[in-house]
């Protein structure tokens, strides 16, 4: 299929293509330097607060959500359109006979004589041979077959015969296949955007949570994290899951949340598995949907809840459950532990905060009760037994003297961050990617050569005129072409073995 010349000429220009790729590369880079909503919404907020003048301008341009902005999607769409237009206009040369080298079309030179065709070749050689007719053709056939050339007989006009031999014909499809495959990859991404979903479901150990996109309740029976000895580097996370499908779950009128018609329904057990990173739970997507839904082990952390803490008072150890005032033996004091920060930091304004959900610097807040009065909350640290902060009523921290007790251990209730993903476009992306690789490999790794041999009877023998074209540079093919022609001359009886040897060693000029 060929689009008439002049149509979409802008899209076919190399200059426009290069401009488009440059814009895509530049805008992709922009998104790595500016905070992005999908990755770090808190950083976007902080940026907007810090840059009140031009922050909103950047925001209105979608620069905090570059990769999902309308203009970036538009650029990707334009690239796909551009590829389609270019490849429709310039389909690969037809698979049949092609007498002219690829840079000349028959339409441009309809009356080209066969000899003139060979004038266009970058590689050229001519000689005379005593052989004629079928014997000569037999030699030619044998010669090209031995070199695995695909040979086609062209035409006979006034006794002139043209043979065209081609090696690695597939190479010409490389550019076409790789460009079309790129469009297929983009199509796969579009399918995911329209039909797929990704959601993060954080579930506390021992608890359950409803998925957002599927009528499923996910139970986390056990979450385990282990570390390499003497380090804080995790070596393994695992979540023991059970997934139930609940028939009584219906969409609320807002179309987003679920409500349970029967809160006592246990549901149908769909699957249970202990998942690891790189080893998800795979479930069918349900009737009418292609592909599968996968539940991945994506993250984990401590959300602030804990089963109990151990407080060391002198030689004694006191176990305190969360938010349960516990009597200190031998005294009238009750101690309550109400909050855990997994990675304690002092935030601006001298306030307690956590900068991570990992247990990097666990700190627990204690309140002491005595005769109906409460003391100021005290923050104690597992890793820093001498350190203590007192928290004022307004939440402001101040250093406090080391207390006569220390935080021995804390048993946090961890949550597992489960990524539920459905990507029906992935197989399409995969097919496109494979096509891209096949196309690029044939384009760059195959060396397409085409040799034209024209034979003209005359006198006691024939005049032979040969030309060639190569998909690579002249320096790569000239030596090979010269060698081939020398061999052919020997086969046709135009050159003796001795001459060939001399020629090989550069003693004889071109025949």
């Amino acid at each position, binding site marked *: 299929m060929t689009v008439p010349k002049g149509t979409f000429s802008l899209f076919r220009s*190399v*200059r426009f*293509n*290069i401009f488009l*790729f*440059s814009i*895509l*590369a530049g805008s*992709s*880079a922009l*998104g*790595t*330097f500016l905070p*992005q909503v*999908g*990755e770090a919404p808190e950083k976007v907020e902080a940026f907007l607060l810090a840059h009140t003048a031009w922050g909103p301008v950047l925001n209105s341009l979608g620069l905090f959500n570059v*990769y999902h902005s309308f203009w970036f999607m538009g650029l990707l769409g334009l690239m796909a359109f551009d590829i389609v237009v270019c490849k429709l206009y310039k389909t690969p040369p037809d698979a049949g006979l092609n007498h002219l080298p690829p840079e000349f079309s028959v339409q441009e030179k309809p009356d080209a004589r066969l000899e003139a065709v060979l004038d266009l070749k970058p590689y050229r050689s001519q000689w005379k041979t005593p052989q004629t007719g079928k014997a000569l053709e037999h030699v030619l056939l044998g010669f090209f077959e031995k070199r695995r050339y695909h040979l086609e007989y062209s035409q006979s006009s006034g006794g002139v015969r043209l043979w065209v031999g081609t090696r690695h014909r597939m190479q010409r499809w490389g*550019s076409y296949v790789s460009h079309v495959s790129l469009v297929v990859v983009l199509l*796969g*991404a579009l399918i*995911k955007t329209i039909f797929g979903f*990704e959601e993060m479901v954080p579930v506390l150990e021992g608890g359950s949570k409803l998925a957002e996109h599927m009528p499923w309740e996910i139970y986390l029976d056990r979450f385990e994290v282990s570390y*390499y000895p003497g*380090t*804080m*580097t*995790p*070596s*393994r*996370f695992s979540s023991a899951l059970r997934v139930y499908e609940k028939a009584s779950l219906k969409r609320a009128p807002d179309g987003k949340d679920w409500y349970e018609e029967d809160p006592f329904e246990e549901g149908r057990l769909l699957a249970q598995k202990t998942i*690891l*990173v*790189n080893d*998800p739970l795979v479930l069918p997507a349900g009737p009418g949907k292609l592909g599968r839904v*996968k539940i*991945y*082990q*994506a993250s984990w952390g401590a959300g602030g809840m804990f089963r109990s803490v151990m407080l060391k008072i002198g030689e004694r150890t006191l176990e305190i459950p969360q938010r349960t005032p516990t009597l200190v033996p031998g005294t009238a004091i009750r101690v309550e532990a109400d909050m855990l920060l997994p990675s304690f930091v002092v935030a601006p304004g001298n306030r307690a905060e956590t900068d991570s959900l990992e247990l990097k610097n666990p700190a627990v807040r204690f309140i002491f009760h005595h005769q109906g009065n409460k003391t100021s909350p005290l923050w104690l640290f597992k890793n820093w037994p001498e350190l203590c902060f007192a928290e004022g009523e307004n939440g402001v921290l101040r250093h406090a003297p080391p207390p006569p007790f220390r935080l021995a251990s804390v048993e946090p209730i961890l949550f597992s961050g489960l*990524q*539920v*993903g459905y*990507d029906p476009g*992935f197989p399409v*992306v*995969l097919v496109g*990617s494979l096509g*891209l*690789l096949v196309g*690029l*490999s044939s384009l*760059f*790794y195959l060396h397409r050569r085409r040799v034209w041999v024209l034979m003209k009877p005359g006198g006691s023998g024939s005049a032979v005129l040969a030309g060639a074209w190569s998909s690579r*540079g002249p*320096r*790569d093919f000239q030596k090979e072409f010269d060698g081939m022609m020398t061999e052919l001359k020997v086969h046709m009886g135009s050159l003796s073995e001795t001459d060939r040897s001399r020629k090989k060693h550069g003693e004889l000029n071109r025949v």
Partner: protein
Amino acid sequence: MEIGFFKTAAALYTVSMVLSFGYLLSKKERLSFWLWKILSVGLFCHVVSFILRTRTFWQIPENRYFLPINTFFGALSYLALAVALVFWVVEGRHRLNILGAFVLPWACLASGAAVVFADPAISGLVPALQSYWINIHPMVLMTAYAAFANAFGVGLALLIQEHQVKSRKPSLLCYRLPAIEDLDQLNYRIIAVFFPVLTIGIIMGGVWAYNAWGRFWGWDAKETWALITWFVYVIYLHMRFFGGVRGRKTVYVSMLGFASVIFTFVGVNYLSELHGYLSSKG
């Protein structure tokens, strides 16, 4: 012991580089001979170091059968090895002799940075990296990066040669360096051979991400910069293939591509938590 072998390799790369500069600026053919020999010994030491490091790495049960490139040291070490090895192959094939002066500095820089700045301690793989993909995806990409370092060297040689040819008083360099056309063709051949390798590396990363997190592409800074590098080399190939542009202009684009490679390898560590060698996430 593996560090000893590695430092020896880095030192031999440096000696080779010095010899390559010596060859470039003098007429002594012997320097080229010794450059090749010393580089070969350096490569041998590097491979031995890598094997020993892998053996130590496998003493941690979770690391078994994976390659030790999870740290900045491991990645720099492999990158230096790949740059030197690709140069060794290209030089062995084309025998330009002068290429070392333009390529070996990158091997020296990578191995030197590993010795000076990176912590050589062996660490356990975080759960996300405990996948057979770690033996393929980063290796494939870094091999492509190493080849682009070679292409950069060839491009630099082309620019110098062009300057020499245009100048009224060409120096000795002009006679040492190959013809502009040869350099241009070699620059293109290296990029053309390794561009599909870059592509397959990026795709493998996507498949791994899909297996680990359920998404093929997440616009993480590292993958975005790998894509930017890909776009730059796409521009280079379009200029040559469809625009018929040769020489200086395409070399500038290939150099921009290599700048993008460097940023993808080093700079992005400060932008990406997922891929950063400075982060324990992954």
